[in-house]
C-alpha cells in the first residue's frame, strides 16, 4: 500500500514534469471517457433504471393480434371477458387509446388532456392515490363518467395541491364530475394525460366488440410465466371466437413485457451511440498508448538504471501501470465534467420521443461507471508500453540504453495503433455519413403538402355524448361560425380543420366494406381516415387530382361524400374509375358514401413510410369532437395565435385552443430522431477524426524526430525540401491508406446494423464511402503536413555532426 502511494506520487511528479504530454493525454482521455459517460448516463436513465412502477417485471402489455396486425387495441367487451375469466393475472386493466383535450371550466376555461381508465388501473401499475381513491367497478357502471381522478401535475397547478379537493365538482366538456382521487405522479412513460375518467361501461360505444379502442395491461401473478399466461389468454380467445364468430374470428392477444414496449424502440439508437462512444474511447486509448510509448523511449535509460539497481520486472510494470492509471483517472475526472455538459445538451436537444431522456444525469451509478471505465482504460493503454519498456530495460541493462531509439516492436505497435485508429474513425465517419445522407434524403421527401405559413392548434368540442355540442350538427355549426370569423381576420389566407394532422402523433384508421364485394366474418378493408372541412385542402396545398374536393354543400342532410387519395385508388380500385364508387364505413352515420374526388398522397405517419391509402370525409357529415385547425397565414403564422384564440372565445367562451404549433414544427418533430442520431454520430465521428489525426500527427512527428539525422543526410545528398516533404507525407499517407483499407472492411461489416435506420440509402452506399474516405485522407494528410514541414526545415548540417 505504501509502495502504491509512492508510485502514485511518483507518477504525479512525472506528469507535472511533462505538461505538454500530460495535457494532450488528459484531454484525449477526457474526450473519450466523457463521451462514454454521457451516453452511459442516458442509457442508464432510459434503459437501465427500473420502470417507475411496483415490481415492473410482472407488468405485461397486451395487443390484439389479427392476421393483418399484431398492434391492434382491445375492445371494451373483450376486455371485460378477459378480466373476468383469466387466472394468470392478479389484475387486468385498460386505458383509453390516447389522451385527448377536454375543456375544463374552472376559474378560467382551459384545455386539459383527459383519458379514460378502468377500475384498478393505477393499482395494477402499483400506484396508490396520493389522496382519495381510484376508480372502482361501480364507477364503471355508468353511461357517462361521473367521477374524475386528477393527475399530479394538474392538481398542483390548477388546484394548488389542495388535499381537500376530494369531493369537489369540476366541469368538463359541460358535464359535472366529482373528484375522487389524486395521483402521486403523472405517467409520462405511458401517456400525457392530466386528468382521468372511468371507462363508462354502460355507454353504447363501450359495447361494440369490433370497437378496438383500449390499451390493456396486466400484472402476472407471481410464479406465472408468459407462456402460462399466453395459454390462459388463448383459451379465452378461442372461447370468445366460438361465442362471437362475427367479431372475434382469428382474434388473439399478444403479450409483451411493459418494459419492452416502452423502452424497446429506443434501444437500438442508444446502443448505436454507445458503440460510437466506445469506438471513440478506443481511439483515445490508442493515442495515449502511442504517447506513452514515445515517452517511455525517452525514459529507457532511467528504466535500465532501475533494472540495474535491482528493480524486478513486475515492480517496473506496476510502476508504469500506476502512471497510466493515474493519467486515466485524471482524464476520467475531466471527462465527467465534459459529460456533465454533454448530458445537459442531450437533455435539452435530444429527441422528445425518447422516454426518460430528461431524467438522465450524472449520478452515483454513472460516476461508478466512470471510475471503472477510467481504471480499465488506464490498464488497457498502459499495459503494452509497460511491458515493452520493462522488458527492454531488463534485457539491455545499462549497456545500450544510453541512446534513446525506437525499437522495431515499438515502431510496429505504434503504426498498428494508428492504422487501427484511422480504420475506426473511418467506420464512424461512414456511419455518420450514411445517417446524414439518409437524413438529408428524408428531409427532401416532399410530404405532399406545404408546411410553410401554416399554424395548427387543437380544438375540443367535448367528449361525444355529453355537453352542448353532442350533436354533430351543432359542432358543424360551431365550426361554420368560427371559420367565417377567422376568414375575416386580416392576415389569414385560408382556414380548415382535420381530425388528425399528417405527421402528428395520432392517426386513425377506419375499417370499411366496398358494397358488392364479399367479405368473411369480421373481415374488413382498412384505410387511414380523416374528417376535414372544405378549407383543409387549400390550406395544406394538397393537389386535387380527379373529381371534386369536399365543399360547403356536403352537409349532414346531403348524400354521403368521401374523397380518397391516390394510394387508396390504386390499392382498392386499380385500373378502374374510382369516382362514383361507394364505401360503407364502419361506425359511419351515413349508410354509404360516394367517392367524389381523388387527391394527392401525403406523408401521414412519417416521411420515411410509404404512402398509405387514405379517406377524407366532410366534417359537416361526420363531425368528431376533437379537431386540429389549420390556418394559412399571409405572413408569419405565429402572429395569428392571439386572434385565433379570441375568435374561439367569441363563439364559445368555455372553449380554448391548445397545442399551438406551426406546421413547420410538426414536420421538424417528425424527423427529430433521425436528426438527433445523425448529428450525434456525426459529432462522435468528427471527434474520432480529430483524435485519429492527432494520433497520426503524433506518430509521424515522433518518426520525424527520430529520423532527423537521416533527413539531414538525405538533404546533404541533394534532397530538396519537396523531396523531404514528400518522404514524410508518403509515410503518413501509407499508414492512412492501410487504415482506410481496413476501415472500409470494418465499415462494410459495421454499417449493416444501420440498415434499419437508413432511408433510401444503402448501407454500403459507394458515394458516402468515397467522400468520407477522401475527407479522412485530406484531414490526416493535413495532420502529417505539420511534421513534414518541420522535417523539410532540418538543417542538412546535422549530417556532418558526429555524435
Amino acid at each position, binding site marked *: 500500500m505504501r509502495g502504491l502511494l509512492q508510485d502514485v506520487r511518483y507518477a504525479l511528479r512525472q506528469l507535472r514534469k511533462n505538461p505538454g504530454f500530460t495535457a494532450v493525454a488528459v484531454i484525449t482521455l477526457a474526450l473519450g471517457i466523457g463521451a462514454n459517460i454521457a451516453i452511459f448516463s442516458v442509457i442508464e436513465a432510459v434503459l437501465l433504471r427500473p420502470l417507475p412502477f411496483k415490481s415492473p417485471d410482472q407488468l405485461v402489455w397486451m395487443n390484439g393480434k389479427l392476421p393483418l396486425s399484431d398492434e391492434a387495441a382491445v375492445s371494451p367487451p373483450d376486455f371485460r371477458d378477459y378480466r373476468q375469466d383469466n387466472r394468470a393475472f392478479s389484475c387486468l386493466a385498460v386505458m383509453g387509446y390516447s389522451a385527448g383535450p377536454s375543456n375544463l371550466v374552472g376559474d378560467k376555461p382551459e384545455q386539459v388532456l383527459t383519458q379514460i381508465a378502468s377500475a384498478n388501473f393505477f393499482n395494477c401499475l402499483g400506484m396508490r392515490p396520493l389522496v382519495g381513491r381510484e376508480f372502482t367497478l361501480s364507477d364503471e357502471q355508468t353511461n357517462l363518467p361521473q367521477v374524475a381522478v386528477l393527475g399530479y401535475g394538474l392538481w398542483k397547478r390548477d388546484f394548488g395541491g389542495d388535499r381537500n379537493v376530494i369531493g369537489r365538482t369540476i366541469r368538463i366538456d359541460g358535464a359535472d364530475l366529482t373528484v375522487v382521487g389524486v395521483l402521486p405522479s403523472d405517467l409520462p412513460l405511458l401517456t400525457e394525460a392530466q386528468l382521468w375518467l372511468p371507462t363508462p361501461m354502460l355507454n353504447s360505444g363501450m359495447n361494440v366488440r369490433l370497437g378496438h379502442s383500449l390499451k390493456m395491461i396486466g400484472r402476472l401473478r407471481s410464479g406465472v410465466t408468459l407462456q402460462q399466461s399466453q395459454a390462459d389468454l388463448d383459451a379465452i380467445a378461442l372461447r370468445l371466437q366460438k361465442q362471437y364468430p362475427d367479431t372475434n374470428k382469428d382474434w388473439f392477444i399478444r403479450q409483451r413485457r411493459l418494459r419492452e414496449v416502452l423502452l424497446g424502440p429506443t434501444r437500438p439508437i442508444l446502443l448505436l451511440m454507445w458503440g460510437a462512444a466506445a469506438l471513440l474511447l478506443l481511439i483515445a486509448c490508442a493515442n495515449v498508448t502511442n504517447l506513452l510509448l514515445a515517452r517511455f523511449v525517452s525514459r529507457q535509460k532511467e528504466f535500465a538504471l532501475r533494472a540495474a539497481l535491482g528493480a524486478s520486472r513486475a515492480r517496473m510494470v506496476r510502476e508504469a501501470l500506476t502512471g497510466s492509471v493515474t493519467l486515466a483517472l485524471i482524464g476520467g475526472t475531466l471527462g465527467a465534467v465534459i459529460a456533465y455538459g454533454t448530458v445537459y445538451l442531450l437533455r435539452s436537444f435530444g429527441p422528445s420521443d425518447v422516454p426518460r431522456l430528461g431524467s438522465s444525469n450524472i449520478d452515483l451509478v454513472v460516476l461508478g461507471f466512470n471510475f471503472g471505465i477510467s481504471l480499465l482504460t488506464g490498464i488497457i493503454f498502459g499495459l503494452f508500453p509497460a511491458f515493452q519498456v520493462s522488458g527492454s530495460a531488463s534485457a539491455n541493462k545499462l549497456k545500450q540504453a544510453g541512446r534513446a531509439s525506437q525499437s522495431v516492436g515499438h515502431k510496429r505497435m505504434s503504426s498498428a495503433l494508428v492504422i487501427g485508429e484511422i480504420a475506426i474513425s473511418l467506420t464512424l465517419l461512414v456511419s455518420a455519413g450514411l445517417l446524414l445522407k439518409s437524413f438529408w434524403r428524408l428531409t427532401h421527401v416532399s410530404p405532399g403538402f406545404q408546411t410553410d405559413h401554416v399554424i395548427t392548434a387543437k380544438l375540443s368540442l367535448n367528449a361525444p355524448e355529453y355537453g352542448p355540442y353532442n350533436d354533430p350538427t351543432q359542432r358543424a355549426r360551431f365550426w361554420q361560425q368560427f371559420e367565417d370569423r377567422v376568414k375575416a381576420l386580416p392576415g389569414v389566407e385560408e382556414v380548415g380543420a382535420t381530425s388528425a394532422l399528417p405527421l402528428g402523433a395520432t392517426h386513425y384508421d377506419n375499417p370499411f366494406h366496398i358494397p358488392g364485394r364479399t367479405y368473411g366474418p369480421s373481415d374488413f378493408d382498412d384505410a387511414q381516415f380523416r374528417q376535414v372541412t372544405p378549407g383543409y385542402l387549400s390550406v395544406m396545398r394538397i393537389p386535387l387530382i380527379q373529381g371534386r374536393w369536399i365543399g360547403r354543400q356536403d352537409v349532414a342532410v346531403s348524400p354521403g361524400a368521401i374523397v380518397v387519395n391516390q394510394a387508396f385508388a390504386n390499392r382498392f380500385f386499380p385500373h378502374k374509375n374510382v369516382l362514383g364508387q361507394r364505401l360503407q364505413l364502419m361506425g359511419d352515420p351515413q349508410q354509404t358514401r360516394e367517392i367524389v374526388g381523388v387527391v394527392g398522397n401525403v406523408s401521414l405517419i412519417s416521411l420515411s413510410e410509404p404512402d398509405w391509402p387514405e379517406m377524407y370525409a366532410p366534417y359537416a357529415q361526420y363531425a368528431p369532437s376533437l379537431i386540429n385547425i389549420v390556418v394559412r397565414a399571409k405572413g408569419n403564422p405565429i402572429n395569428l395565435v392571439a386572434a385565433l384564440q379570441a375568435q374561439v372565445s367569441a363563439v364559445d367562451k368555455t372553449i380554448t385552443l391548445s397545442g399551438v404549433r406551426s406546421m413547420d414544427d410538426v414536420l421538424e418533430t417528425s424527423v427529430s430522431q433521425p436528426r438527433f442520431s445523425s448529428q450525434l454520430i456525426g459529432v462522435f465521428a468528427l471527434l474520432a477524426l480529430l483524435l485519429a489525426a492527432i494520433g497520426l500527427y503524433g506518430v509521424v512527428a515522433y518518426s520525424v524526430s527520430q529520423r532527423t*539525422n*537521416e533527413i539531414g*543526410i*538525405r*538533404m*546533404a*545528398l*541533394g*534532397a*530538396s*525540401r519537396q*523531396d523531404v516533404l514528400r518522404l514524410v507525407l508518403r509515410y503518413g499517407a501509407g499508414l492512412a491508406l492501410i487504415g482506410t483499407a481496413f476501415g472500409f472492411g470494418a465499415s462494410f461489416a459495421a454499417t449493416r446494423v444501420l440498415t434499419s435506420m437508413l432511408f433510401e440509402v444503402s448501407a454500403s452506399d459507394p458515394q458516402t464511402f468515397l467522400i468520407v474516405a477522401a475527407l479522412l485522407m485530406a484531414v490526416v494528410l493535413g495532420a502529417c503536413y505539420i511534421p513534414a514541414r518541420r522535417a523539410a526545415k532540418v538543417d*542538412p*548540417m546535422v*549530417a*556532418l555532426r*558526429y555524435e
Partner: protein
Amino acid sequence: MAETRQPLIQIEELTKVFYTDEIETHALSGVHLTISKGEYVAMSGPSGCGKSTLLSIIGLLDTPTAGKYLLNNKPVENLDFGDRSRLRNQEIGFIFQSFNLIGDLTVYENVELPLTYRQKMPSADRKKRVMESLERVGMAHRVRHYPSQLSGGQQQRVAVARALGGHPSILLADEPTGNLDSRNGEAVMELLQNLHREGATICMVTHDPRFAKHAEREVHLFDGKVVAEEELQKLMADVHA
C-alpha cells in the same frame, strides 16, 4: 602541371560567423583557397579550427557570412536552398566520418538515393551508375545487405560509392577514417588515391599526418585562416607554450 589545370573552386576572403545565445563564433575569418580540377587536397588543423565549417560551405551545405565562392566559375555564395540542393546533388559527393548510410535502406538503395533526387533519370541509367560505383569500391556483391550487416570499412566504401554515383565534380570527405581502425582506414585511403588517379577531384579533412601525405597538397587551417606549413608549426608551438 598545376598551372594548366582549370580552377574548380575559388574562395576569397571567406568568413563564417555563428551566432548562438549572443555569442559570436568566428569559425572562418578570411579564407582564401583554390582547388583545381583533378586535384587531391588534404585539409588539416587542430580541432575547432573551422575545417568542417569550410568543408560544409564548399559542399554547399551552408552559406558563408561574407566572401566570394566560385564553383566552376559560377558564384554560389548567395544561392537559395533549392538551388544549393540541386547543385549539391550534381556537383558534390560527400563522404562522412560516421558513414551516414541510412539503416532502413539496402546497400543498393543507399547508393541509388542521391540519383533518385535527380529529375528525369531513367531507372536503367540509375541501375547502371549504382552498379558501376559499387564495382569501383568493390562492394557490388553486397547490394542486398543492410548497413548494419557490414563492417565499418565496408560501410565507408559503400558511402564512397554513393558519393561517386552522381559523377560529382568533387568528392568532399570529412575525416573519412575517423571511425575506422587503421587497417580499414588504410583501405579507404587507398581507394581515394585510386579514384584520384582516375581523375577525381578530392578535398579531404584529416588530422592524421600519415593520411595527409596521400594528398597532392596540404592546406593548413588555424583559427579560421589558411596558414603556411612553417607558420602553423610556429603557431602550434606558441599554443603549447
